[in-house]
């Protein structure tokens, strides 16, 4: 049975706590983008993907690609929260040779499909996976999370053309549009709006939603593909650093190095949220 919106919100809160657990091991990382995207990642894994631990390498598996590889903390946390990897793997974050490095490494961690981190690579790789699934006759779907800051990379639009031309409607891209990147507001660094109009012009079906609102995310996931015969682009308006009040909506959250007190406050807030959601789930 699919989890309820409330249960998904609880799962996302627990995943946020796991991001903070990694920061307890090593207090530095691309936290802002991980937390803007983590509701999307949690919902995709929990409600849209058919994945099991023994099936993580199955040829007909659904695939999740983090084109914005620096949001890896979100994927690691969700993989652990969903039980696809052991949680204690997260405690190696920051160590040399860790299976959860700053950017994901497919050879180190099950569930990671590509070595992303360099921006503008994920979409074309995902197109290859979607083409491979079709050639093999599998019903697999491919989910990609991109950042709005990586959209100026021209290679994304090579991928956008490929997906539309080859009618890859089993491919869905979520653009985590938190509106901020390392140098400032994305619209000032390199304006790429209207993002949905651009994907639409390439031949995609598009929609926009609040990417930190679980009910909206689940509704769209249930509707995929948005239009049969077309790949789907979901422009998710999000808040960078969502879930840590002291850094929400700030450029500084992009790569956050919390003090011990800042980290403790973030953990306390997150655990309060989790307890509140647990109570609501229990009462529902």
């Amino acid at each position, binding site marked *: 049975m699919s989890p309820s919106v409330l249960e998904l919100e609880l799962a996302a809160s627990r995943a946020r706590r796991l991001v903070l657990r990694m920061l307890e091991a090593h207090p530095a990382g691309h936290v802002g983008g991980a937390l803007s995207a983590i509701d999307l990642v949690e919902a995709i894994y929990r409600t849209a993907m058919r994945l099991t631990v023994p099936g993580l390498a199955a040829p007909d598996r659904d695939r999740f690609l983090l084109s914005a590889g620096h949001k890896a903390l979100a994927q690691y946390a969700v993989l652990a929260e969903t039980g696809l990897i052991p949680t204690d793997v997260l405690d190696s974050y920051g160590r040399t040779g860790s299976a959860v490095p700053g950017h994901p490494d497919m050879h180190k961690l099950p569930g990671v499909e590509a070595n992303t981190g360099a921006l503008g690579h994920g979409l074309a*790789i995902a197109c290859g996976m979607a*083409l491979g699934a079709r050639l093999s006759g599998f019903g697999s779907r491919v989910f990609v999370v991109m950042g709005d800051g990586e959209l100026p990379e021209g290679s994304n639009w090579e991928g956008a053309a490929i997906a539309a031309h080859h009618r890859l409607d089993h491919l869905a891209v979520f653009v985590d549009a938190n509106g901020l990147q390392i140098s400032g507001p994305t619209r000032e660094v390199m304006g790429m709006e209207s993002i949905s109009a651009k994907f639409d012009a390439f031949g995609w079906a598009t929609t926009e939603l609040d990417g930190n609102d679980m009910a909206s995310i689940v509704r769209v996931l249930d509707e995929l593909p948005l239009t049969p015969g077309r790949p789907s682009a979901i422009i998710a308006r999000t808040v960078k650093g969502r879930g840590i009040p002291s850094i929400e909506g700030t450029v500084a959250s992009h790569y956050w190095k919390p003090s011990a007190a800042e980290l403790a406050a973030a953990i306390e807030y997150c655990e309060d949220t989790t307890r509140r959601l647990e109570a609501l789930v229990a009462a529902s």
Partner: protein
Amino acid sequence: MTGNLLDPRITFGQAVADAAALDPKVVVLSADSGGSSGLGGFAASHPERYLEFGIQEHGVTGVASGLATCGYIPVFCAIAPFVTCRNFEAFRNDLGYMRQNVKVVGRNGGFTYSDLGATHHSLEDYALMRMIPGVTVLAPQDPAEIRGAVTAMLAHEGPVYMRIGSEPLPEIFPDDSFVIGRAKRLRSGNDLTVVSTGYVTPRVLEAVDQVGAEVDVDLLGLGTVWPLDAEAILDSALRTSRVLTVEEHYLPGGLGSAVCELLAGVPGVVVDRVAVPHDYVPSGRYDELSARFSLDPEGIAARIRAFAASGARSRPVAPGVSG
């Protein structure tokens, strides 16, 4: 050497089509480049495994990586600079770092697209590709080796870059045998080692035969640029003490550089290199440009004679061996 000259692109395309007909995992990717890579017949016979993407190489490199994760063996052939320089970071990350079983073929390598100018020349591909850990770099030397190299690269697990040219090529080998990383001895001799690679080798062979009465050349033809056949080169260099490398590539970074790296620790061995000076090659006739850079048989023969006549020989010493 037979007098029958074959277009390497047609030889290549037919070899891929033959292999793909037997192996349903082989898929051909085209960046508006398949037909001119000799793969038009495969497109007609196997349309489901011939994927067209239009003119874009970064994207196709990523697609190849994704297809490989599904167990397919993508073969992507286009003009050499566009599948090595333009997409270099995708090659490094999506194929190299991800260790994907993808075969990229740069055609019209070197300055064989001579009249189209430096945008279409590829004189740094050996250097770029051998710098990506895990990438095998092939440069088959005649039509038989192109056929053999296609079979070998498809059987090899891992990313491969192969350079072919466009000038018609004579057959110099009696069969299609090709072992990745292994040189072939085309002539045996004791005065001077010549190490050659790629479609230049038939000309080198002609040059060696021209000087045959004057210089006793040990000629090693390398269908694999990287990994280098260190054993064969070291063995020959220790006997002759002089090694001349010949390649249609920039002087820095290619086969000659790789041979220098190999022999740097070997006292008494002198290396000379025939290659293209590190500058943009003007557009022009291929035969004239080849002669300008001593890459025609007469030029290569002259360099062999000059090298053989220079300096005194000294007995080389193997690495780690004193005295």
